[in-house]
């Protein structure tokens, strides 16, 4: 079934916009914004706000309608299917299937100086009421912090005989995160140890499909919780144990 944006009536196709054009405000500024939206294929454009916010920039708030729809059933992709378990079930699964602690090493790699992501997932206190991986009795989790070179992360993972490596990338300007993430994959492959680890990446611009494309086992985007990551790790380790 095709769906369209819902404003206040089914299929009215109403969308809200805010954008800035690099033109100074003039009497024709509202029409510039309106015709721009029409060029995009929208109709019934209503310019709510059209203000010069600088001599050479005009800010718009607008509403417009679209006739374009989408069939949700036709949207297919590489989504991470994780059954989110609770803290106790995760520990129990690891204990039962692995018979030892699951060893995890995590870091924000290379130039990225932001620990907020890796801390939220790994630190004892966790995030949003979820304990971090360090709290799990069945995990031996090490958060190495930020600006960790790939070589150092790998060395530590090998020393600790890690089952999983968690990588965080917050800074994405000029796609620096892609370079950093690719570097880690290339290093693991060059050393012939890629298959030894469950390799997971998280960050604001990460999704599972993108992570898979780069060669990771899973990717976690914004608002991911320690429970989701822990559930994935436990289930993936169990799955690999089944295959072995």
């Amino acid at each position, binding site marked *: 079934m095709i769906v369209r944006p819902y404003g206040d009536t089914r299929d009215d196709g109403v969308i809200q916009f*805010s*954008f*800035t054009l690099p033109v100074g405000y003039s009497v024709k500024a509202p029409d510039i914004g309106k015709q721009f939206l029409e060029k995009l294929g929208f109709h019934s454009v209503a310019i709510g706000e059209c203000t010069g*916010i*600088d*001599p050479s*920039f005009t*800010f718009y708030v607008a509403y417009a309608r679209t006739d374009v729809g989408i069939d949700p059933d036709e949207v297919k992709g590489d989504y991470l299917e994780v059954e989110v378990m609770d803290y106790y079930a995760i520990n129990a699964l690891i204990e039962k299937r692995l018979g030892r602690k699951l060893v995890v090493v995590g870091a924000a790699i290379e*130039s*990225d*100086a932001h*620990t*907020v992501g890796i*801390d939220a997932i790994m*630190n004892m*206190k966790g995030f949003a009421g979820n304990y971090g991986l360090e709290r799990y009795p069945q995990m031996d989790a090490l958060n190495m*912090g930020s*600006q960790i070179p790939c070589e150092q992360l790998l060395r530590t993972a090998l020393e600790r005989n890690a089952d999983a490596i968690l990588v965080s990338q917050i*800074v994405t*300007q*000029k796609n*620096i995160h892609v370079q950093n993430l690719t570097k880690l994959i290339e290093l693991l492959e060059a050393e012939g140890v890629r298959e030894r680890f469950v390799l997971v990446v998280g960050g*604001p611009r990460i999704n599972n499909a993108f992570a898979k494309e780069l060669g990771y086992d899973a990717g976690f985007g*914004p*608002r991911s919780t320690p429970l989701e990551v822990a559930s994935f790790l436990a289930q993936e380790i169990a799955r690999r144990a089944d295959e072995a």
Partner: protein
Amino acid sequence: MTDAFHLDEALVTRARTAAESIADDIQQHIDAHTTDSTERATLRLLGVVGVNEIDVPLVNVVVEHAHPLLGGGVTAPFVDLMLQTGQGAQEVAEGVAGGALALAPVPTERRVGVEKRAAELAREGVAAIDAVRRRREELVATSGEPLRPYVYVIVATGDIHEDVLQAKAAARAGADVVAVIRTTAQSLLDYVPYGLTTEGFGGTYATQENFRLMREGLDEVGAEVGRYIRLCNYASGLCMPEIAYMGSIERLDMMLNDCMYGIIFRNINMRRTFVDQYLARLLNARAGIIINTGEDNYLTTADAFSKGYTVIASDFINEAFALRANLEKWQMGIGHAFEIDPATPDQVVYQIADAQLVRQLFPEASPKYMPPTKYMPGDIFQGHVIDAMFNFTGIFTGQDVMLLGMLTEALHTPLLQDRYASIRNAKYIFEACRHLRDEVTFKPGGIMETRANDVLAKAVDQLEEVEDMGLFEALSRGEFADVVRDPDGGRGAEGVFGRDDDYFNPFFAELREGRMSGPPTGPPPGNSVAQGKGAS
């Protein structure tokens, strides 16, 4: 506020006493050491600029050559070469870098002459800073001084030309302070990049030329809008004092300049940072720059509700170090933040309590209030409302500097229109609530006053514990932001040198004495070379 919180004054006294003692202990370490970056900043003060043929700053090259002599400081052998060759500082630096000249210990018979000449050069170097400060005063008088709180926004494009364009747009929309976010990891570079830059990751390189370009742009737009627009950057990382020097010459007005931030959040060696922050702060003090401390960062790592007291404890420590570096109270942008989880019942009630506590504990300072970041949602509409409550808390508790939250905080570095929306939000609330603070009183013994006294009491406990164990030990136990640091670990440890008895650097005395707005108010800088308990 006419009738603010009734705080336990005995606790306030105990907090300051403990912080003073903590800082005195570390000051013994500071007075007994120098660092690569301290000596490089000294050469910059003497007038050395530029880079060699492979883009290494000349000050780095010269200090590297001087390593065997650094216990005595680079100044005496360097000035000796100037006198022996009759050349200026730049020529001597080029000579040393090129191998034509070599730094050597100063023979006893030339020592008096060298020290006399160095003292003259120190006076000239500091006079240049004073001239820049006077120029700021003139411009503030002609362009106009904004109302408090200052509206502080960031630009972070990576390209200095785009930064200038966005900064001007922000000033026209109502910003009073523009901070240029630094490129990722510049704090870990042990040199200051040179020249104008148009590429950076998550920010723009702090270089002297970039400082100059942004200053020029802000002066232009300041004249246009009738307000002096302040410029902020980061005197932090491994080059703290050098960047402070650059800021003092290029007329920056604010600098992030925390005494412990680099240690906790950038894993810079603590022996290094404490020495570096001292000269950096002496320079900022002289230049009339407002420093910003970084306690907001604690609350992005640790929980803002239960660990709010660590902010207060650290504020007292930053104040004590600032006083020892000659900063005046108005120059202390004491840091704190609006980071309690919005899902907490009475969140804003507690935020007001915490913010009002800072205001009362540091009445003459210029507190800098930091916006919500940790719990900002991707839903920008809800984010805008949370930012509004932050703005309300700021104006209601009389903060001096408001770093505005961005509705898109969780999504990307601010777009031009994000900054505009955010400034509109703040300006509306600041004007709509301007005198509210004067019209109400807090309920004695209410939730807020109780919270404030509770946070203060916990801060005192922490400060007294830190005093007992020493700050180095406290940092190695993760007392701040739950981050654990090894006194011997971290970056830059190799750049710390014990001072010999004949260590000579006339800039310390020159910066300390004769400050422009009256005699020093802080305790005198220590001269002891004894090792304190924290410095062992």
